[in-house]
């Protein structure tokens, strides 16, 4: 049987370790149970501390793949002076950077507004297997002139939220990996997909041609893109936009 010192050393080394011996000890020791809560609270703080905010320039810096010209085998027709080439390259780089940033950011503050909205409805993130009543879901979607024509997964939360001056469906879909929030943003167009990672939320905003965009996000360090993409595809496939 594990003793308190052994247990506390183990929980400090890995606060999320849940082996049977440790569980058994914690369940039978009030002090260690209290200590675990204390350590896990500190761990939440550590998680937030490690996730430093990244500026859009840091996150979306283009040019990670070498320019095409570098791979090209095409011979040059004539040599140009080095200084001229450097100036031209700088100009080209500036245009590419400016162009890329413009393309990747569908609206500079849209992601920030989506994340800020999450703080207004923290209860929506509950992990549950109880679906929201079908009538509630229908009503929420109807307010944004859409309806479901197929199964969108286990929707545990549905609310029609005022977002940037429009009523938008705010849904939470339960998955094996945890709850995923979906906001159907019919009034927010996006030229291309963008990912964001802000204040403990990870997500993406994807364009929906002819119907604005959709925001999908997860909370916490375990958020993964594949789950979000799957949920987004399922919800989009289930929506009837002509309602």
């Amino acid at each position, binding site marked *: 049987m594990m003793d308190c010192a052994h247990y506390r050393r183990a929980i400090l080394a890995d606060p999320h370790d849940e082996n049977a011996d440790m569980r058994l000890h914690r369940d039978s020791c009030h002090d260690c149970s209290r200590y675990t809560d204390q350590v896990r609270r500190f761990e939440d703080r550590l998680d937030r501390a490690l996730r430093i905010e990244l500026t859009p320039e840091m996150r979306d810096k283009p040019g*990670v793949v070498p320019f095409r010209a570098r791979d090209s085998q095409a011979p040059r027709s004539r040599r140009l002076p080095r200084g001229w080439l450097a100036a031209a390259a700088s100009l080209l780089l500036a245009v590419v950077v400016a162009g890329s940033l413009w393309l990747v950011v569908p609206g500079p503050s849209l992601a920030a507004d989506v994340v800020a909205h999450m703080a207004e409805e923290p209860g929506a993130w509950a992990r549950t297997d109880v679906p929201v009543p079908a009538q509630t879901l229908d009503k929420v979607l109807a307010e944004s002139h859409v309806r479901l024509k197929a199964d969108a997964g286990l929707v545990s939360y549905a609310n029609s939220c005022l977002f940037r001056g429009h009523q938008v469906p705010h849904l939470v879909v339960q998955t094996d990996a945890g709850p995923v929030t979906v906001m159907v943003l019919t009034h927010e167009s996006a030229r291309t997909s963008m990912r964001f990672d802000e204040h403990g939320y990870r997500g993406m905003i994807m364009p929906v041609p002819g119907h604005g965009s959709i925001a999908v996000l997860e909370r916490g360090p375990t958020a993964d893109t594949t789950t979000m993409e799957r949920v987004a595809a399922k919800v989009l496939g289930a929506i009837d936009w002509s309602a």
Partner: protein
Amino acid sequence: MKDAIGGNQKRARFQALCQALRPDLLRFAFWLSRDRALAEDVVQETMLRAWKAQDSLLDEGAAKPWFLTIIRREYARSFERKRFATVDVDELIAREEPTLAAADGHDVEELRAALFKLPDEYREPLVLQALMGYSTAEIAAQLKLSNTAVLTRLFRARKQLRMLCGEDTRMDPEE
């Protein structure tokens, strides 16, 4: 023509992979170096090296540890090249103040400053575990340590952090 299309697809796929991993890689490099500008340089260089060596990445699912290995090497290289003088942690903290600032509270800022003061050999496994979600065995493989050594470092890292942050450590175990 076919080659050009294939090349474009390969490039786009690699670009998407880099874009998806970039936030985590930047954060890892930042906590490794405690220097935002250096972290950006290391990540950029890492991506260029990864692009050149992409054929050695057989499974895209293993991309993250692959990138992390390159980052660690790149950081070590930059360290060798510049032969940094002894660092004054308080100076580092002052220099990186904007990056350490936290919208969600002073307690987070305090913890970030404490992380700066943690010795490298404790900070690195802690970041791999708490930020990158690595298991003890994965950290051991990445850092070429035994599982026991990793657990000891993680234990010491948290113990020191708790002390630096003025947490109630009366129940903390001795070594």
